[in-house]
């Protein structure tokens, strides 16, 4: 399953919102590799915001692209680089939960990025490093594409919005019920479902504003929040500052190549800190509850 001799490089979109990569498509791959405990380096592509090839993982002279055969994670499984799903692939509930996260929750994130909050998250994630007229044109092009993907027209905006949020609420309820107080969703071990959902939760909590409807629906499920917090502390926080390279905003190149910059996680906003404080208090209570449970 794991090839310890290979050196992996994940090329993703830039770091922002305190996340190692701010892109909701790139973050699951990052977390999946973290779950696998395989050492890998992280590089950013800042000049190709409309590419569906990103994220991609390089290993030796091979590449697993996002737009090929089920995506990066699937390609890594097929090439025998890393496979966390071998024991759960035959579980129907796992498959259906994963499909639900990859469709309903992904649509909800896409809606929030492009059509909520004046599309500020989208601008920050994809276009903040592209020179002005190009960034503006590409933004309009991508927003139009997102509209088509979500099936939104001028006549059905409200209906589609209601439908998207309703499905997200149903998904959260189902996932919360399935998770309970477990550490992972299935078999007490991380799978790609955990990677994808954890990325969704972290993105929703860190990147979306306080007024986000999706965020408010997620906050209603405390076990999902503690699940995310625990996994973040265990798999991401310990090595976040060393894994994320240094960002030079005035340079278009890194030591590796011309389009790759590195980034320190940016300081969190006051609003985020307030949310973080609340989360810590809630998490502390949760941790105490868990410890008490373990001692039983």
């Amino acid at each position: 399953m794991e090839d310890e001799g290979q050196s992996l490089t994940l090329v993703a979109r830039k770091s922002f919102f305190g996340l190692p990569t701010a892109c909701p498509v790139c973050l699951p791959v990052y977390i999946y590799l973290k779950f696998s405990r395989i050492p890998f380096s992280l590089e950013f592509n800042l000049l190709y915001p409309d590419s569906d090839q990103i994220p991609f993982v390089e290993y030796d002279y091979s590449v697993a692209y996002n737009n090929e055969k089920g995506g990066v994670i699937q390609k890594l499984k097929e090439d025998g680089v890393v496979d966390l799903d071998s024991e759960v692939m035959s579980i129907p509930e796992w498959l259906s939960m994963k499909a639900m996260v990859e469709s309903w929750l992904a649509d909800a994130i896409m809606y929030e990025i492009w059509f909520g909050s004046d599309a500020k998250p989208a601008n920050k994630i994809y276009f903040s490093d592209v020179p002005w007229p190009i960034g503006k044109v590409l933004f309009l092009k991508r927003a139009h594409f997102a509209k088509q993907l979500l099936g939104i027209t001028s006549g059905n905006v409200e209906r589609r919005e209601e439908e998207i949020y309703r499905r997200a609420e149903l998904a959260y309820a189902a996932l919360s019920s399935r998770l309970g107080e477990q550490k992972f969703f299935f078999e007490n071990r991380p799978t790609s479902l955990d990677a994808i959902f954890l990325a969704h939760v972290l993105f929703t909590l860190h990147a979306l504003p306080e007024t986000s409807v999706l965020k408010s629906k997620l906050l209603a499920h405390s076990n999902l929040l503690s699940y995310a917090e625990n996994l973040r502390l265990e798999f991401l926080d310990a090595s976040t500052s060393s894994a994320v390279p240094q960002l030079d905003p005035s340079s278009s190149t890194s030591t590796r190549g011309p389009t790759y910059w590195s980034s320190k996680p940016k300081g969190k906003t006051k609003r985020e800190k307030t949310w973080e404080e609340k989360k810590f208090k809630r998490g502390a209570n949760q941790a105490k509850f868990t410890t008490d449970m373990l001692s039983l």
Partner: protein
Amino acid sequence: MEAPAQSFPDYNESSSNGNKDQSEEIGQDEVDEYENGGEESNSLNAESGLRTDRDVLGSFFRRLSTEQVPVRVHDIIIQGNNKTKSSLIESLVDEILRNATSVQQLAGAARYATMQLENLDIFDSVIITLDAGPRELPGTANVVIVVSEKNPLSGDFGIYTKPEVKSWTLEAALKGKNLFGYGDIWDTLVGYGWGQSLELSTGVSVPRFKSISYPLSARISLLSQDWLKLSSYKEQVMGLSLGLFSSGNHNVSYNLNWRTLTDPSQMASPEVRRQLGHRLSSGLKYAFKIDQRDSPLRPTRGFAFASTTHICGLYPDIRSLRFVRQEVDLRYAIPLGLYRASLNFGISAGFIFPWGDGFLNKSSYIPERFFMDGTASPVCSLKGPTSIFGFKPRGLGPAEPKRVSRDDSINANSDSSSVDHIGGDLALTCFADLSFDLPLKVLQNAGIHGHIFACAGNLSKLTDNAYKELSLQKLRNTFRTSAGFGLIVPTRLFRMEANYCYVVRQQEHDSGKTGIQFSFSS
């Protein structure tokens, strides 16, 4: 009958028939003589008039051949310009005509003025007539310029060669000439090339604009180039180009482009993969060229020098593309006499380097790097260090392995290379070429001649800290060399060469090939 003092016959300069009409000024007495008298006396008078004309003309030309006949231009009269602004014509010819102080100088100035007006490409014909000035102002002349304006709309359609890249393009162009009367030429061009290259552009040029006395031009274009097979990328360039200054040897232009690199094949090497995306380039280009060779396609004497400097990054946004690119060419031809033999030497060099914060660690933009091959003759081309015989297209220089996939459906086509040619930041080429006529008369008449040549070239990487490992020793050791002989067939459109090349030295991943090769230069 005497011709008035200091008068001279009309001198008519025409571009449409090339003949010089010569008319003689006739005095009032002579007119009276023609009008009076009977038929017999008329015929006698006509004969007498002709003799007079010949005498006056003869006297005039004797004066021209022996002395400077002083004259001053009194008035310049322009006729036939229904649309063209008189100010445009005057600005081109006024000074040169009024500076003439003799009839001889005025005749020469008239020829030059004709050429200037023809070069505007907006007239079917230009006729300049030198007429006597007012009687009360002896020693003066009037210049009458009669133009015939062209049809404003014209079109071209055809197949054009681009020998340097061994490709052909199908092009259609629509031109609008002199639409606003300023000698403005508008054109729209659509070109489609074999190998899926596409060009769509529209532009305008004016010979002069208000107080600016040199040509100005502007062009908007969309260009798509496919280098997937050799370098795993396609480039789209959409932008604006402004010709700011052009005179003789100098040319300054500004370019603002949106450049996009993509890899639809998803087989690119890491170096190319890291450069995929969108960039804004804004830069000034200065080109200087002087070519004193007797022929650009078969130079036998003289020298040529060309230099192009491109500074990119002149944009307030620091995220735009930034680099400095310089290339120089020097050519020298020495005639040897026998069989029109001549020895041609040449050296070309160039470099590209990014600038801005952290430039030492940056990589240069691949499409702007230097690439070398043997598709064009180094003797003819003055386009930087690009030519060395014996190598396939982009077949020399740094290369990186392409992506390897275990999936057969993703793998590259069997006929494409397994490496990406990524070009170099520092390029040097030099050559020596001995050309000579062949003994057969029929070949000499057709311009077909032979040559023996030797070439050398080097293409190295400087960026990404590669300059730290560069040394003179390493440069010397990585020079590629080739030699050979061949036949040169000049055609109306281009110069074709059939050469036998022997690659003396090449490096790993170079595509040098010993054998018969064809190259084309235009």
